[in-house]
């Protein structure tokens, strides 16, 4: 019987003009989203490439100079000797830490457009004190991006609602349901078959769109299963809601009203309320006051007498201190490095709460994901694309590590009273991107559990209301 219903329903479904119109709409929307995302990514990627190219060009320009400097030693011309100065070597070799999520970010832009994707690797830099702030149109940021993740998170559920809101009610309103009952088809059989069919169709459609998207932007296919499973779980939740509302035995208009309500609650109200909760619990700390205090720390640190700086440095870095040759210990040149190291340590300590807030906010959002399935699904897409705040924080941490390595190397050379030669130049650290941490398992589990609970409710409601339906 189920097979007969399935075949019949498939025929009926395919005959629906509204279905074809909707499929066209979703395909067009998906196509537009992929195209827009791709163009946006190209623009972004070109900027990152330019920065990376700049780094490569500086390297190519400097490397021969250090070769000559090493070969000639003290015989090198004065002009070249400047390159041996550790501060100058660090200054001239322009290195950058770049945040460059892969091409999958064309499909899920996440927070990529909000962040400044480069930070200069240099002795005086601090990850908390970004030198550059990306140029954006804030009204465009407010409107949000029309990328594939938007289509999947927002528009796919609408398609589920439009296809399923009258899965049973229409037959009842047209008087067909009682006729079908006579033929031995139960309303529940009919409802579940239709819902299963719609689920299959829409999941197939989302797999198709995702696959086209992955192929067009040349994304890493290792993330494809996460996207496909995420879409499946997200759809399972929505078809569950549609089935549940249909089991209540009310009119099509009523069902459409309630399902539209669910859409608003799950995609607008709940995320907004949780956002409000998170904002109140861990408000974003004002960064400019930190910047101003950092500025004061810096100048106060510099104004201290060399002897005091020397004593503090000895306490904080006894090993490094012991390597400073006696004759140069209290010179201005050496003071620069010690002051910088002490100042950065203080500024980092001051900036620690700023760095912590982001992680704390993410932690709370993660704990609340069971109340916020739309965000759970979105997180699967954005973290696998590497465009979530968590990915950015990983990048910031890796940048801080590179900055630290850079200071260590320069301090080692400078405090020992040595100058830069080829070997030291080659050792100047360059940034390496941290491994991508996609948060898929936990969020899939969350969506799966919510969908499972909902389907239990559907089953219970279907049993309870079968007579009325």
């Amino acid at each position: 019987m189920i097979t007969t219903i399935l075949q019949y329903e498939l025929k009926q479904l395919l005959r629906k003009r509204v279905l074809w119109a909707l499929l066209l709409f979703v395909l067009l929307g998906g196509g537009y989203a992929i195209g827009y995302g791709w163009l946006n990514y190209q623009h972004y990627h070109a900027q990152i490439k330019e920065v990376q190219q700049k780094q490569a060009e500086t390297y190519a320009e400097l490397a021969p100079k250090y070769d000559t400097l090493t070969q000639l030693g003290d015989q090198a011309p004065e002009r070249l000797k400047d390159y041996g100065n550790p501060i100058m070597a660090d200054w001239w070799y322009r290195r950058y830490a770049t945040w460059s999520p892969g091409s999958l970010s064309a499909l899920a832009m996440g927070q990529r457009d909000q962040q400044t994707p480069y930070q200069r690797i240099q002795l005086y830099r601090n990850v908390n004190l970004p030198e550059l702030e990306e140029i954006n149109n804030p009204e465009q940021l407010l409107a949000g991006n029309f990328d594939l993740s938007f289509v999947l998170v927002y528009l796919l559920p609408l398609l589920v609602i439009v296809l399923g809101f009258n899965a049973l009610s229409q037959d009842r309103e047209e008087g067909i349901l009682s006729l079908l009952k006579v033929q031995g088809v139960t309303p529940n059989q009919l409802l579940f078959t239709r819902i299963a069919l719609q689920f299959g169709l829409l999941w197939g459609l989302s797999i198709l769109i995702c696959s086209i998207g992955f192929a067009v932007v040349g994304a890493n296919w290792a993330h494809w299963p996460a996207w496909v499973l995420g879409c499946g779980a997200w759809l399972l939740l929505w078809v569950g809601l549609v089935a549940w509302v249909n089991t209540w035995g009310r009119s099509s208009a009523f069902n459409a009203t309630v399902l539209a309500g669910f859409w608003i609650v799950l995609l607008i109200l709940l995320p907004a309320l949780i956002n409000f909760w998170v904002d109140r619990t861990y408000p974003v700390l004002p960064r400019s006051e930190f910047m101003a205090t950092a500025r004061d720390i810096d100048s106060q640190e510099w104004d201290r007498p060399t002897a005091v700086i020397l004593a503090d440095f000895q306490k904080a870095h006894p090993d490094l201190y012991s390597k400073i040759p006696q004759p140069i210990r209290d010179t201005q040149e050496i003071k620069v490095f010690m002051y910088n190291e002490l100042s950065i340590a203080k500024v980092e300590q001051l900036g620690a709460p700023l760095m912590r807030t982001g992680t704390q906010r993410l932690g709370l959002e993660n704990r609340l994901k069971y109340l916020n399935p739309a965000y759970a699904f979105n997180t699967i897409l954005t973290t696998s694309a590497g465009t979530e705040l968590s990915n950015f924080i990983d990048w910031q941490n890796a940048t801080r590590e590179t900055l630290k390595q850079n200071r260590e190397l320069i301090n080692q050379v400078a405090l020992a009273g040595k100058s830069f030669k080829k070997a030291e130049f080659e050792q100047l650290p360059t940034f390496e991107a941290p491994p991508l941490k996609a948060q898929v398992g936990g969020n899939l589990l969350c969506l799966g559990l919510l969908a499972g609970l909902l389907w239990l409710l559907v089953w219970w409601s279907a049993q309870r209301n079968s007579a009325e339906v």
Partner: protein
Amino acid sequence: MLTQIIQNEWRIAWRERQLSVLWLIIGGLLLFATFSGWENFQRIHHEREEAAQLMRQKWENQGDQNPHSSAHYGTYVYKPVSILHFLDPGIDKFAGVSLRLEGHVQHGLAFAAASEQSSLSRFGDLHTGLILQVLVPLLLIFVAFNSFQRERSSGALRLMFAQGIAPRSLLWGKIIAVWSMALALLLLVLLLSGVLALSQPQLSQGTDVWLRLLGMTSLYALYYFLISAMAVQLAAAIRQPALSLLSLLSIWVLSTVILPKVVAASAEQQKPLLGVMQFNEQMHEERDKGLNGHDPEDERSKRFERKILAKYGVDSLSKLPINYDGLLMQEDEYYGNAVWDKHFGLLNRDLRQQAQYVAWSSFINPFQALRNLSLSLANSDLYQHLHFQKAAEMYRRTLIRTLNEKMAYGGSKTGDWDWKVPEAWFSELRDFDYQAPAIARSLQQRSLELVAIAAWALLLILLLWMPWWKAERLL
């Protein structure tokens, strides 16, 4: 008769439990959002005010200082939030809030709150504007979609026409009834906002705030009229309530969720903005071509040097009665200002063109007009942001020029970098006092949206006068 129709519609809506519950939920959400928005506004306002005071304090207590060191030390200015931020915070969290002002360098506005938030923030914030723009229209749709179906199925419609009610009067009655339900919610917000604004008399002084509040209320009232008129006419034209609801919901999704994103995305594609690194490099390059205050060997600075020496009739810098360094640095500032004017001018032109592109879409999507005008009336839009940026830059120029002139003519000689000015002198320099644009200026920049929303209202009224609204069509 019209009054009776309106009363009847209200009675029906009130009797329908779902609708009255929905109305109460949205009303409750509006109250909650308005109060929490007010609290949020106060927090941000105090935070920025305190930060600005702190910066001023730091500036005044910098000790005896060389004016040029002071120019490097610089200060920070903060974008103040308009009092109507609590109704529509607009771009506030997506745009930078503070600007560092110092010599030689012109920074951009930095530290947007959204850059420290996850993509949850992109789902939107719960504020009064969101409810008024997104949820109230939805409530009107739910009220209106089957407003004819009830009377059709019960035969009451036939009876009404038999009693001589004109079809157009019926339509108007229903539209006004649906509209008045939204106006009741709007009145609630207006009263509450008025009371809250009055509780901060120093912020709500003058007529501007009240005109803006009045403007916002009129704007939303007009938009709700559009929604009511459209929903009732569609409900009258489509016989099946489910289809009527689906059509209205599709229009709602398209106009509030999809089109604003699509239009913003294509505006961005039309006029892509430069990356900050490319932008800064172009500026640096052009500035380097000019005078460099720290590079006296530069050709241009030599020319300037010759000019100054000739002016004072001496043959070396040491013989000048003034400090040449101050003059040279100010000359470099002038060049830097010209570079800023050029590059920020181009950037702002691109941003304005993007905004204009989006504004034109108001003619196909009245929601866009509503949103842009709401941002503008709340003084939380792009234009106000650019206005602040310009005001801060003008202040920076005056401040740095004063410092450079003090360096030049204050009594020191060329090369005297250790010369200091007493701390009290720095306190005498004027603090930054930003005046946001008045309502007339805000609306002038949104004239396209104003025309569009008025055109939409006219169109919907015209549709009501069309000859096809006959009794037999409605039955």
